[in-house]
């Protein structure tokens, strides 16, 4: 039916990795494995039929009804010819009842056929959309259930296309399915009827069907590689366009518009060539497919005239068989459409199944943190080690404490393990060795949702949902607007939110693209603060925020109940309690102003703790630390040799 899914987005998200390349694997086009693909294609369809047997039944019955009645049309015409038209002309009279019968038959058949069409088309649509919905729900549930480690092993683009274009491809053959089933039924009925009408003419006519099927198969075989190629080129085209528009500023300022256009035009031309080739193929096959039944009709007529002459058959029979041929030959194509969808479907289904069958889950315990605990939590890391790739450990032997209400800054060069450490604290991943405890409870023993109640993380790259400002801050929690405003104020985000057209109810659009980086970071921070976390983890969360604003934010965080501090004193909200002690803070920082606020600074180097102490102590005792944080000052004087991590 109409192509409704935004292809550009799909194609842009198509992974380019050869293993998961879009479209059809070469083997599917190889004649030797073709039967296997056809068998697999039917197996995929069977899954859908089992899942939605009733809708399938209705649409198939509709289709069979349509097929049968299309055939019946020919029969009604033949009957009318023999019993009404010819006798009327012969005898010069006809009963009104017979005329009424003609009307009743034609109109009845047409109405029933209309019902058949609606049942078939709507049924096919409903079945296809339901299967898509089932699969999308299942796939996204998997995405939410599988551990972070699984996500890290799968590129974003791949996962997005699994849930979008692969789902669509997998259930693509459902659309032509009822039509194909109906066609088969129609063919059977037509063949039986032809055989019953006149054996000899039927055999002559039946030569047409195998010829049409053979022509269709030959067409499919030749066209599907071209279709696959065209699909790949469309994906490429979309990728180039997306990237080029993303970098429009660079293209413009360096005056590279012509080169970019050439890059795009080249692929557009290749796509054109493939499409033209596919078109020529189609141009050759279409008339051939149309001509075959016509030729059949001519042969039937020639034979029929001879047989009528010898008295072997009636004129009406010749008409009936000729009509059946023209009516049935055309829908045979739908079998070709069905088979043509199979390769894409099989590939899509396999890719979706791989996600659905993926194993792994983050196990949770039963422990709970005290429900009435307030103020900073105590975080302890003991000999924690973690490696994403066993050859490249990211952290080893890290032992670290964040005492209640204290602020610890993590400092280190790029790739020294700071972000890995924050992932461990929020339990996006579990350590390979050692343990992390919150108020003495091992993170792995905590019940689901417990950790999130006590710990809030603000990541480096703010992620916003396609929702309102309020939705993005509360994430569905039932919080009064006062609390939301207080959090926005503490995150220094209240001013720009107030200036938005609908305030808290302003929709931010997909991933908040309408906001600047700094604004997104501050909303992300408000989201953390509104939960009154007992441990707040800031992973370089204010990098795009003006340093002075950042300073105000951090200062507020270190005072008792940041929300109360930020809130208007007149707000009479029992939830805001100035006696609540400040949360514990774990901060990844680059800016000296930020580092300077910390009670303790931990210098990470190559996944190990190289030094710890106050900023002043480390400056005095650790030359490596001093070199790292003093880079600004020495920039104009002697260059500092880059650290190992920086050069990677």
């Amino acid at each position, binding site marked *: 039916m109409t192509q409704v899914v935004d292809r550009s987005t799909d194609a842009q998200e198509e992974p380019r990795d050869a293993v998961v390349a879009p479209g059809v694997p070469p083997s599917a086009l190889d004649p030797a494995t073709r039967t296997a693909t056809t068998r697999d294609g039917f197996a995929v369809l069977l899954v859908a039929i089992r899942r939605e047997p009733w809708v399938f039944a209705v649409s198939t019955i509709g289709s069979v009804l349509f097929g049968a009645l299309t055939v019946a049309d020919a029969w009604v015409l033949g009957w009318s010819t023999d019993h009404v038209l010819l006798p009327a002309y012969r005898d010069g009279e006809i009963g009104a009842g017979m005329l009424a019968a003609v009307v009743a038959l034609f109109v009845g058949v047409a109405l029933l056929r209309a019902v058949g069409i609606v049942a078939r088309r709507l049924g096919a649509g409903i079945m296809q959309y339901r299967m898509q*919905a089932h699969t*999308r729900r299942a796939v996204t549930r998997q995405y939410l*259930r599988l551990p972070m480690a699984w996500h890290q092993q799968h590129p974003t683009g791949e996962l997005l296309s699994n849930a979008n274009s692969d789902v669509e491809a997998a259930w693509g053959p459902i659309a032509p399915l009822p039509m194909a089933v109906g066609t088969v039924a129609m063919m059977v009925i037509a063949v039986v009827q032809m055989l019953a009408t006149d054996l000899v003419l039927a055999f002559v006519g039946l030569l047409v069907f195998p010829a049409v099927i053979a022509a269709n198969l030959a067409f499919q075989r030749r066209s599907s590689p071209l279709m696959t190629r065209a699909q790949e080129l469309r994906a490429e085209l979309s990728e180039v366009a997306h990237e080029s528009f993303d970098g429009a500023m660079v293209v413009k300022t360096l005056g590279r518009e012509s080169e970019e256009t050439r890059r795009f035009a080249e692929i557009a031309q290749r796509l054109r060539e493939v499409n033209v080739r596919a078109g020529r193929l189609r141009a050759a096959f279409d008339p051939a497919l149309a001509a075959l039944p016509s030729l059949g009709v001519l042969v039937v007529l020639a034979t029929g005239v001879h047989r009528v002459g010898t008295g072997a058959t009636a004129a009406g029979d010749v008409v009936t068989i000729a009509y059946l041929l023209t009516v049935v030959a055309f829908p045979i194509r739908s079998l070709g459409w069905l088979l043509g969808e199979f390769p894409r479907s099989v590939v899509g289904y396999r890719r979706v199944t791989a996600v659905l069958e993926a194993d792994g889950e983050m196990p949770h315990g039963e422990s709970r943190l005290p429900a009435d605990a307030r103020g900073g939590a105590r975080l302890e890391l003991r000999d924690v080690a973690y490696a994403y790739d066993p050859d490249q450990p990211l952290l080893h032997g890290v032992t670290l404490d964040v005492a209640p209400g204290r602020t610890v800054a993590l400092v280190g060069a790029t790739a020294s393990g700071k972000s890995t450490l924050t992932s461990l604290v929020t339990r996006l991943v579990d350590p390979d060795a050692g343990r992390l405890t919150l108020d003495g409870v091992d993170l792995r023993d905590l019940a689901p949702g417990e950790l999130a109640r006590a710990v809030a993380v603000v990541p480096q790259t703010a992620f916003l949902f396609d929702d309102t400002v309020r939705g993005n801050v509360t994430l569905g929690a039932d919080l009064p607007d006062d609390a939301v405003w207080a959090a926005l104020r503490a995150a220094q985000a209240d001013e720009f939110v107030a200036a938005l057209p609908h305030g808290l109810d302003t929709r931010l659009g997909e991933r908040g693209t309408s906001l600047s980086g700094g604004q997104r970071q501050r909303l992300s921070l408000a989201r953390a603060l509104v939960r009154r976390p007992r441990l707040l983890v800031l992973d370089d969360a204010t990098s795009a925020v003006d*340093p002075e604003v950042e300073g105000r934010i951090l200062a507020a965080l270190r005072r008792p109940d940041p929300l109360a501090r930020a809130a208007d004193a007149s707000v009479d909200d029992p939830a805001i309690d100035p006696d609540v002690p400040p949360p514990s803070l774990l901060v990844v920082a680059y800016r000296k102003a930020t580092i300077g606020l910390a009670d303790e600074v931990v210098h990470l180097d190559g996944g190990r703790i190289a030094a710890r102490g106050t900023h002043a102590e480390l400056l005095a005792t650790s030359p490596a630390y001093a070199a790292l944080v003093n880079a600004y000052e020495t920039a104009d004087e002697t260059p500092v040799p880059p650290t190992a991590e920086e050069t990677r």
Partner: protein
Amino acid sequence: MSAATADPRVAAGGRVDSGEEMGALETIRLGLRHSPELREGLGVTLLLAVLASAGQVVVPITVQQTLDRGLGAPGGPDLRFTVLLGLAALVAVLVTGLASYGMTSRLFRTAESGLATLRTKAFRHVHDLPVLTQNTERRGALVARVTSDVDQVSQFLVFGGLLFVVSVGQVLVATIVMAVYSWQLTLVVWLCFAPLFASLRYFQRKLSDAYGTVRRQVGALLSAVSEPVVGAGVVRAYAVQDRTQQRIDEAVERFQAASTRAQGFTAFSFSLGGVSGGLANAGVIVVGVLLGFGGDISAGEVLAFAFLVSLFVGPVQMGTQILTDAQNAIAGWRRVLGILETPADLVDPGEAGVELPRGPIAVRFEDVGFAYPGGPPVLRGIDLELAPGSRIAVVGETGSGKSTIAKLLTRLMDPTTGRVLLDGLDVREIRQASLRRSVVLVPQEGFLFDDTIAANLAYGRLDATEAELRAAADELGLGDWLAGLPHGLATRVGQRGEALSAGERQLVALWRAQLADPDLLVLDEATSAVDPALEMRIGRALDSLMRGRTSVTIAHRLSTAEQADEVVVVDRGEVVQRGPHAELARQAGTAYARLHASWVAQQSGRGADRAVASAGTLDA
């Protein structure tokens, strides 16, 4: 990029023409103008189409002739006549097939060529649009216009447009042929189809609405499905899996409902043609019998007429289907054409323009003012002269207009009043190619293409050899950094360069600018905090890059201003102060003094050694 949706000036003037105002015929006319290939050989193609569709009458006529003169010949069936007729029909069928081949392959060639041109033109035009417009549009929507929207048009042009014309032709031809047989029966057929034709418009509108809804729901679905993937970390850290799933389920459901509704309309409108056909068949037989009594028509003619009705029904159904699909195609075509109809307001003088001489550029602003369409003035009466080879820092608070100065200098926008002169030449008179050659802007975020470092550097200079790339790296002091990369110049940077850190991306952007070797360098200083060691490296690279060129830096750090030859202070759209840092810092009670004071306060407060002036990060 500013808070676009909240920004009135964007709504006032930056959007791409949606094309929604255009009628269908106007769209087609405009489309043909932009893709002249579509007209090529249209006459021949149409002739072939007529031939191909006329050929479809051959078989029913043969049936009729066979019945009347072969089977019903006086003295028994006439086999010889039937065979001759059959052979003639065979020739006709073959000719029809050839004509059909010719038509379809020609259609594919012209349509695909025309659309490849349209696509490419639209792509180019997106790059020619003002920066403001580019930033306002969602990337995905722009991409769709040069990809899926064009594909939709392709379907229509190949299978729809001409076929619709032919279908209408067939309906007319069938009507004429029917009328030759019997005008009474023809009238009966038309009466039976009248309700269908009458309801067509209503259904088209319903369908168009229904598919519009589907399109919107697809967008929402894609967005919802991306949340557990892109936001995997946040969803887990905040334990909002249930809420996320619920949002997805809602989007999935809404999409399903919208699709089903649209499908319902399609199915229902499609079934109407069949019902009309049944009515027509019955009417023909009944009225045919009645007419037969009067001797007006023969049995064979009535039968042939019954076949002719199917010739009438076929194209009517085809035409209805095409009209349905056309809703989407025309809408897609409108959106593509909408891009081309959006004015690219910066006109390149082309050959008529002048070349900028090489060597450090002298900059002059003459009474320059700027306002976004429908917005208040951003800059007012700027008069400024910058000496060739000097280092200028432009400072000012958020929203002061300092970034606008950079955009005017690089001609990303033209001033509303006054002139911007480079080496005494109005930028509007300088050839675009020459201007881009000599003036380079390094934006805040160093955008990189998903390719190797070397390929990204090629954007700076296409023909640079590897030795030149390395030489440029050495000049900027990046040699050891390059050596530390896993694959050196062949290191892939990932999408938008995200395999590199923010600081490293900036390094590559500076390196790219070095290769471009501009005479005027305009820098929008990055505000993101980066690893201090890298920060230092960036500083050194910048220093080398600026050597021997005129440079204008939109400064967010006062340390940058300190090192400049001259500081230009912008306040509320006007230049309020200029001069070397040391001099400006001494002038008490001025804008610069305020910026400086807050900077000093930052420095001494809480042990923070160096920070940034209050110039924010949100104005870029």
